[in-house]
């Protein structure tokens, strides 16, 4: 814990519900990649972590990406490694999938598909929501 947070007592041992909301397509902007970096770091803090993929964020999980032609890092395999960090709660919004003509078979990892109302309830019960 850093010096500047000294006035925050009682932080140790707290387990909060952290949700990371991914709403951006990969490659066009860095949010998907840098968002993943936060999630991996959060794993070290023993929190109750979930990831949501909605809107263009569902495109982050598409199979078969090949980034050679645009000369950027292909980070899509990292989603498969989340499991090893005990990050297992991956949620996808159904309306977002439908609007893009996608199904679970198109995705690189196993996810739980929720309708918009279920997603709303899940969000409302979080302690911290970080979105990008």
């Amino acid at each position: 814990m850093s010096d500047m947070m000294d006035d925050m007592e009682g932080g140790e041992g707290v387990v909060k519900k952290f949700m990371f909301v991914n709403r951006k397509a990969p490659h066009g902007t860095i949010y998907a990649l840098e968002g993943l970096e936060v999630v991996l770091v959060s794993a070290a803090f023993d929190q109750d972590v979930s990831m949501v993929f909605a809107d263009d964020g569902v495109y982050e999980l598409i199979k078969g990406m090949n980034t050679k032609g645009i000369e950027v890092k292909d980070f899509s395999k990292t989603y498969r490694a989340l499991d090893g960090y005990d990050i297992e709660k991956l949620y996808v919004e159904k309306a977002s999938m439908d609007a893009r003509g996608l199904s679970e078979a198109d995705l690189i990892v196993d996810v739980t598909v929720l309708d918009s109302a279920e997603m709303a309830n899940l969000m409302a019960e979080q302690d911290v929501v970080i979105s990008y």
Partner: protein
Amino acid sequence: MLHIVNKSATERNSLESCLRMASKGSAVLLIEDAVYAVTQGGVAAAQIQAAMADLQIYALGPDLDARGMSARVLDGVKVVDYGGFVDLVTETNVCQSWL
């Protein structure tokens, strides 16, 4: 829960997504370019009016003023200043920004 939207509803999909995934009784605060959505005559007005059945809609006054939109705010929308913004954050259990 507090949902914060900062992008224009005529440019991006974030307001629409927020309204779709906001649970009943939530507060939605529009800031920055998102404040255009609560003005009369715009395409988002109907969406906002429908949403007010289930959600509390707020807009940040200083952002409305900066855009010359303060006199056009839809009935039922609550205009708050930065102090009101802080209160919304502290009085709800969690907040989410729809970037």
